């Protein structure tokens, strides 16, 4: 082969109004290679991918894309498909009202004669679902799938496309270990059949497990590419953030754990069964489990979003009756939800608006806005969270994912509850921002707040929590102490997470 790279992107620039998001990017990938693309939130990873996928146009002029040595003109999604580019986008993009089969074949339906051949589409879909280890009927509507399964469907779609280049933009953000293992198996297969894979993720351990080489973007510039053998986590992190980031889980000073402030007894509804646990002031309790274990459902039940069929809740020893979110907030609970876009943010509104919406009481008394107080409040939390923004008047939709996540956190910090429920608080957040969020979580604990931390990242759970509650299919299967003296083991957690019956793989 005269040309070692299957995909060559060179001189790619992209300017959004007022911002140069990509600056003269050089990015080449070989066939049969897994290339990780890393960078902080807002570095421009998704933008680069969207240019490759024909969703954005690159700035006219210099840039070229070559595929298999030939120059490729990619102006539309169809062009990209034509060149054998398949993309799993960062946001799950499935039509929920349609079946899995319909989604898998969306845009490339199979016809038998003049009309559609549903039978064939369902048959092929079913085959790929089996291969992915998803035990569902291909005619199931996507709406009825969990987020994790939806993400698996997205992945299946790319596999089905016969693409020569497959891009995965944070494919594992909603997946847990078992599903990730499935995915990695598939990636190995793809590699073997000579497909070029671009893999974007913020999860360091994954990158080093699956990638052959890593490219790093920072502020729209390509900082460098090297093979995994030549890189270490610390090196990658420093390339990403432009400085050393010694210990991201570093906790300075010991936090005193106080008395019990939240106690859940025998909580049950359709999704959770007889849940018992308690939180203490200044304590961080990690909630581990496979996706679908019912952690989010538990959080929703506590926060008054979902109905509780039986069970009691005690706040500071007193029985609390929480019927809706207002009640929960009144009892001093704050909830950073799992899905920031649909549950956490008002995208069309400003950062200021978003951070102040829960605390309107503090600066609007009946009629009239105390602007000064409002601005101080926003200033305080924007600083504390170091949100990358041009001003508090910036609309949230123009922030990168990590900064959006910080806005959601800021909103609840401003509300100053006693009990924080954090549901996947670092999903899609880069290492730098992660480290900052971890410090914020410690800070909360230090102030005597109780933190219920739901996370699917084992590292996070093990390193942040004082105690770990493990759930499986709606029940608590284990509670592990996790302090300086006795660190919980990943195997142990996995054992409980898979029901405590069989030994977890791995």
């Amino acid at each position: 082969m005269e040309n070692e790279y299957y995909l060559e992107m060179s001189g790619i620039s992209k300017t959004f109004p007022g911002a140069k998001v990509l600056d003269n990017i050089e990015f080449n990938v070989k066939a049969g290679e897994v290339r990780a693309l890393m960078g902080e939130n807002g570095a421009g990873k998704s933008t680069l991918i969207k240019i490759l996928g024909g969703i954005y146009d690159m700035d006219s002029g210099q840039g070229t894309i070559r595929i298999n040595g030939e120059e490729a003109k990619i102006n539309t999604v169809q062009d990209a498909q034509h060149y054998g580019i398949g993309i799993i986008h960062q946001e799950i993009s499935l039509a929920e009202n349609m079946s899995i089969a319909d989604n898998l074949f969306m845009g490339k339906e199979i016809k038998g004669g003049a009309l559609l051949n549903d039978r064939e589409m369902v048959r092929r879909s079913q085959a790929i679902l089996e291969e992915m280890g998803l035990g569902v009927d291909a005619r199931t509507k996507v709406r009825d799938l969990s987020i994790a399964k939806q993400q698996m469907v997205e992945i299946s779609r790319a596999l089905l496309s016969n693409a020569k280049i497959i891009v995965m933009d944070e494919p594992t953000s909603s997946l847990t270990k078992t599903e990730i293992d499935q995915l990695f198996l598939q990636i190995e297969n793809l590699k073997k059949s000579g497909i070029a894979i671009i893999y974007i993720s913020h999860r360091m351990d994954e990158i080093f497990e699956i990638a052959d080489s890593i490219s790093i973007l920072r502020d729209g510039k390509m900082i460098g590419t090297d093979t995994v053998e030549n890189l270490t986590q610390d090196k990658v992190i420093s390339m990403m953030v432009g400085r050393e980031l010694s210990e991201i889980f570093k906790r300075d000073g010991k936090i005193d754990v106080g008395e019990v402030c939240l106690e859940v007894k025998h909580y049950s509804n359709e999704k959770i069964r007889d849940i018992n646990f308690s939180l203490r002031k200044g304590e961080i309790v990690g909630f581990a489990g496979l996706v679908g274990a019912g952690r989010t459902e538990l959080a929703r039940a506590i926060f008054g979003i979902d109905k509780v069929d039986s069970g009691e809740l005690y706040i500071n020893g007193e029985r609390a009756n929480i019927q809706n979110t207002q009640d929960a907030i009144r009892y001093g609970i704050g909830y950073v939800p799992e899905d920031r876009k649909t549950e956490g943010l008002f995208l069309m509104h400003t950062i200021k608006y978003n951070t102040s919406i829960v605390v309107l009481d503090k600066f609007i008394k009946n009629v009239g806005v105390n602007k000064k107080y409002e601005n101080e409040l926003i200033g305080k939390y924007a600083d504390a969270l170091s949100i990358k923004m041009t001003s508090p008047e910036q609309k949230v939709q123009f922030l990168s994912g990590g900064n959006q996540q910080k806005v959601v956190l800021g909103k609840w910090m401003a509300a100053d509850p006693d009990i924080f429920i954090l549901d996947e608080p670092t999903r899609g957040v880069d290492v730098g921002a992660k480290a900052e969020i971890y410090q914020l979580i410690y800070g909360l604990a230090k102030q005597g707040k109780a933190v219920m931390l739901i996370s699917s990242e084992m590292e996070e759970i093990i390193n942040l929590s004082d105690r770990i509650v493990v759930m499986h299919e709606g029940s608590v299967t284990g509670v592990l102490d996790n302090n300086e003296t006795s660190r919980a083991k990943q195997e142990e957690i996995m054992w409980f997470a898979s029901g405590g019956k069989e030994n977890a793989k791995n």
Partner: protein
Amino acid sequence: MQKISENKIGVGSNPVVVFFKNNMGILIALLALCAVLSIATDSFLTANNLLTVLRQICINAFLAIGMTFVLIIGGIDLTVGSVVGASGVAVVMLMESGVAIAPAIIVALLFGAAIGLINGTIIAFTGMPPFIVTLSLMGSLRGLCYLITDGRSVASKNELFTVIGNGYLFGIPIPIYILVVTAVVMSILLYKTKFGRRMYAVGGNENAARFAGIKIKGLTIRVYMISGILSALAGIVLASRMYSGQPTAGDGYEADAIAAAVLGGTSFNGGIGTIGGTIIGALVIGILSNGLNLLHISSYVQMIIKGLVIILAVGFDILKNRKMARQ
């Protein structure tokens, strides 16, 4: 894990079963209505009256099928009533000016397509809300229609033309045949072609459709064109029924078309809708007014009842679905 709830768009196991399951609420409403009317009046359950009702619903059914298409892709088309008026006037004027019946009809249908093209193009390329675009064009088109006719109706002297709306074939009114053919063609288009499948995708999740390489603009334009053509078809049949092109015809028809589609389970948020459901919706609305007339209920009370029935039927449907979906 969770129960697989049946599929509204009919990819489920047995299409007939799925259809009945999905439209249970409205089917029950329809049957109840028929039962009550059969008992309360002598005249409801006669072949003659049923044919009358069927013929009456044809106009609304044409519009409602087009509206279903538009609603499935997440749009709305308020111009349908104005197109009914304008195309009826157009077809009659053309014939009166000496054009033969077939080309006159074709030109009128093309006119409907052209209005759809304008609607669709503006919506697809500017991203303006379809409600605003079609509301504005509804007014403009009606004004144009008055301007051309000077507000007067145009009588048709073409015998053959009047047969379309008024004639019978084997004892069944001709508009019913036209409706059946239309429904079958549109069903094939919707369920059995790429175009139809992609309509559901665009209405279900526009971004997903875009990422899947579906050409959303083109599809949007074609859907509005279909609505325009069906509206023109309704206008032609109506003009034939009235032996004339009436510039006022079709005023306010969009409301019944939307009601029929929504009663039939078409979602206002896009992505969901069936032609069978829509036709049942049109039947409910048609039978309701027929029945209320047979029961000698004053038109004022009829207005009140009609509104309430729609709310009850759609509400029942939504609550039922919610129950199925949640717990």
